[in-house]
């Protein structure tokens, strides 16, 4: 078991290493570089040379990669070009904001998704299922920029209950941020909950049709005991991986929603730094987002492994 965990962690690092090379090479082969972008029309002669020297761009690419990677491991991603400040200072509040948004969506969305999914499965083809399923399919199909815009129109502009877009400094305190995040959270949670509820529904239905559930019924196990003991543990196991991917997707920046609501999270930072050709920040973001995906998937796999007795013995035997 321990061996397996170590192996998976090592594989995770290898993945990150490959991602870092790809982003480094990617930014390298793009025409132009940080200095030409920064200096714009003055990008020639002495000034360009000086800029290269200042940013250390005059050494060969592989040397720059090594020194960048060494620094990055220690959390130092260098300087952002547009803000002229350390990237970690730029990232810090953004990560915090994205975390706030994601965790709010997770804490609201996942329980609702589970409950809706289970209800629709247990009352399959009956009124609760038909009603909820119609709503979830509806919520799934509306693109988030439309639902977000509609939310702004109704809640913020017509009813004037909440602010429509987030106009606060990036490093604002949590309490001040709170009223601002309600609409974005609702917009994200809607689509996420709908997806997950559908997934949970089909998973529960599949288990309900299994021979072991039929056996439990024939054994005389009361309905709700059967649901909690025999159905849910088996039906929700496959949900763990989906939940993990959803969390990673949330943390990785829900770009569209953040842009619509002008929310200062990681997603918007990605868009901003790409349009500003702020390559060091793009590199840092790519690495950070990749690490989020890798580590959350790793956690989910280990969790499934621990909860599923079948996989556990299988792995140990190997």
């Amino acid at each position: 078991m321990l061996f397996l965990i170590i192996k998976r962690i090592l594989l995770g690092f290898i993945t990150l290493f490959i991602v870092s090379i790809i982003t480094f090479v990617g930014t390298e082969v793009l025409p132009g570089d940080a200095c030409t972008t920064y200096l714009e029309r003055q990008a020639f002669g002495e000034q360009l040379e000086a800029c290269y020297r200042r940013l250390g761009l005059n050494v060969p690419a592989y040397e720059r990669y090594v020194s960048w990677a060494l620094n990055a491991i220690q959390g130092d991603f260098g300087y952002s070009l547009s803000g002229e400040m350390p990237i970690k200072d730029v990232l810090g509040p953004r990560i915090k904001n994205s975390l706030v948004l994601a965790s709010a969506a997770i804490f609201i969305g996942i329980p609702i998704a589970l409950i809706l999914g289970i209800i629709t499965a247990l009352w399959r083809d009956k009124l609760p299922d038909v009603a909820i399923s119609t709503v979830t399919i509806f919520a799934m199909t509306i693109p988030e920029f439309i639902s977000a815009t509609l939310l702004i129109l109704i809640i913020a502009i017509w009813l004037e209950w909440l602010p429509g877009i987030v106009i606060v400094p990036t490093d604002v305190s949590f309490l001040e941020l709170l009223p601002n995040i309600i609409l974005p959270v609702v917009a994200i949670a809607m689509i996420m909950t709908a997806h997950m509820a559908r997934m949970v529904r089909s998973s529960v239905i599949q288990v309900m049709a299994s021979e072991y559930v039929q056996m439990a019924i024939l054994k005389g196990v009361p309905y709700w005991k059967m649901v909690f003991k025999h159905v849910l543990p088996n039906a929700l196991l496959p949900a763990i991986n989906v939940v993990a991917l959803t969390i990673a997707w949330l943390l990785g920046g829900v770009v569209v929603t953040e842009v619509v609501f002008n929310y200062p999270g990681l997603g918007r930072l990605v868009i901003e730094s790409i349009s500003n050709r702020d390559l060091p920040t793009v590199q840092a973001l790519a690495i950070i987002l990749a690490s989020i995906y890798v580590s959350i998937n790793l956690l989910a796999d280990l969790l499934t492994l621990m909860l599923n007795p079948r996989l556990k013995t299988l792995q140990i035997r190997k």
Partner: protein
Amino acid sequence: MTDIIQKVKNLSIGFRSKKGEEILILKNISTNIKKGETVGIVGESGSGKSTLALAMMGYVKHGLYTIEGECQFNSSNLLKMKSKDLEKIRGRKIAMIPQNAGQALTPNLKIGYQIDEALQLHSDLNEKEREKKISELLNKVRLPSPETIALRYPHELSGGQQQRVAVAMALAGTPDLLLLDEPTTGLDVTTQAHVLELLNFIAKDTGTSMVYVSHDLGAIAQVSDRIIVMYSGEIVLEGPSRDILKRPIHPYTHGLLKSIPKLSLAGLPESMPGSQPQPGTIQSGCSFFDRCNFSDENCKNNSPKLEFLKDLNTSVRCFNYEKLVNESQASQTVNKIKNKSQDKEILNLSEVSISYAKQKLLDQIFNRISDDNPTVKDININIKKGETIALVGESGSGKSTILKSIAGLLRTKDGLIRFDENRNLSSDLKERDPNDLRIIQLIFQNPDESLNPNHTVEEIIAQPLKLYFGLKGEELKKNIVDLLQKVRLGEFYTSRYPRQLSGGEKQRVAVARAFAAKPDIILCDEVTSALDVSVQAAVLNLLQQLKEDFGTTYIFVSHDLAVVRAISDRVAVLYQGRLCEVGPSNDVYKFPSHPYTEVLLGAVLEPDPDIKPKLVAEDIVEERPPEKGCSFQGRCSRIVGDICKKEIPPWQLTDSGNAIRCHIPIKELQKEQF
């Protein structure tokens, strides 16, 4: 009468088709189950036998509903009972032993808990007492070391052990009636015989009534006092077990018994034409009319009623049963197969070993396989042109593994596979040229999975014709129709999809696809085990006919020794990937034989209440072959000493040319086996 425990009265269960028609799965079933008796319900898949058994617990599957009738238990109708009340009867008064215990045990719960759950629900024992009871129950179903086994998860047990757990779970509520739905189907022959013996013991020991549902007349014959034969949702024959098996007076049962291959009789059994009609397709007349050899005009237009014959104590649904009353079942006729093998060798396996072990990185890089104790080892067989050689053994004996290697689907570790005396076949599919691929074709066990559901029959058969012979247009069409006719399917099948065919028809399409490549060798992997008995005989006869027409060589893998007996010229018995015995099938089925062959032969269930299985060895499941010595040492009842554990036994030849790999001299072997 008070000794009736369950009374089924005029029961009809069905579903509503998309057009709104009411389609019956069970048609007006009435029968009584008495206290302490074991009733066998036998029928092909789709005959409604499982639906009937489930109805006896008041359970009707999703999509089906009760149209009329009752299932009375203690004079209350289970089918109208509230689920609260049913919970008190299910598991406590009536318990179910499911077909596939592997799927019927909840995967995330330890088996001790699952038995405990039944005890909590249906007994007043406290925790200490329950713990003791669990051990008792596990002991009763003869599971080793009950305390540790209770802590395991279902997937950590073998198939036979899982089935025993299911039995223990059913016994936990000390029920008055046990319903068994194909409880031994899917188990190995030896395990099956052991489980049946256990069930017989439990029936005697506890006096429980049992309803035993199965398609397998062999198993039914071993356990039941009374047999109900179902066909197309109706009871067609009901009576004392012995009479039904010895003198079946319904044409269906008559034909069914004739189509079962017997160990004692070499050759292919007669087959019954056609297959069971789909529910809802019979409008008038007897449902067996199409397949019946005794039918007349009357049968076509009028449906026979179930008639009770007092002097035979039997109920029968047939107008013409009298024609059968005097006919004895002993007159089973078989088509003796002619051994058409030539002296020319077509395939030779020498020193073949195959490993499933996960290879270390270094070995993977150098593309080699290292394993001291491979799954399959030292296989030496030479196969003659035109013969049928069968590989038999329990699951895990390596028989399918060897087939895969011959087909090129699995790399061998060592050894050579030679075709036609001099051509080496690489064990890697990618290194075989198109002709190598063409000469060896496979027919799989389950045609549902081996035929692409999105292709029509025409497209399925066209593929090898296009691939190997480049046929197009009219010529392609003509070839397809020819092949379909060879497997006795008409031209109109070309546009059908696999889901529109019955099991037997699907397997015929698979056979046609294999023959389309004009192969020299066809590998048959359990080709009849997914089919109903009456269809099985027809497919076996077809395979034999095609072989005689084309001179093809068959390598036939099966766990069913009676089927192997019927079709093969030569048999190779395998245990744990090692050969035990090879010889002409007539001799392998005669003693003396390898102790493992003896175990296998002893465990075969014949549809005859007078032939009881002989249980020679324990049904232990071994995880891997032993490192040293004889492969069968772990289960052999005739071990002669340390030599069996240390040395690989030598090949010994019997007078008839049968090779046996055992340390016991042939003469000695013979002594105890008579």
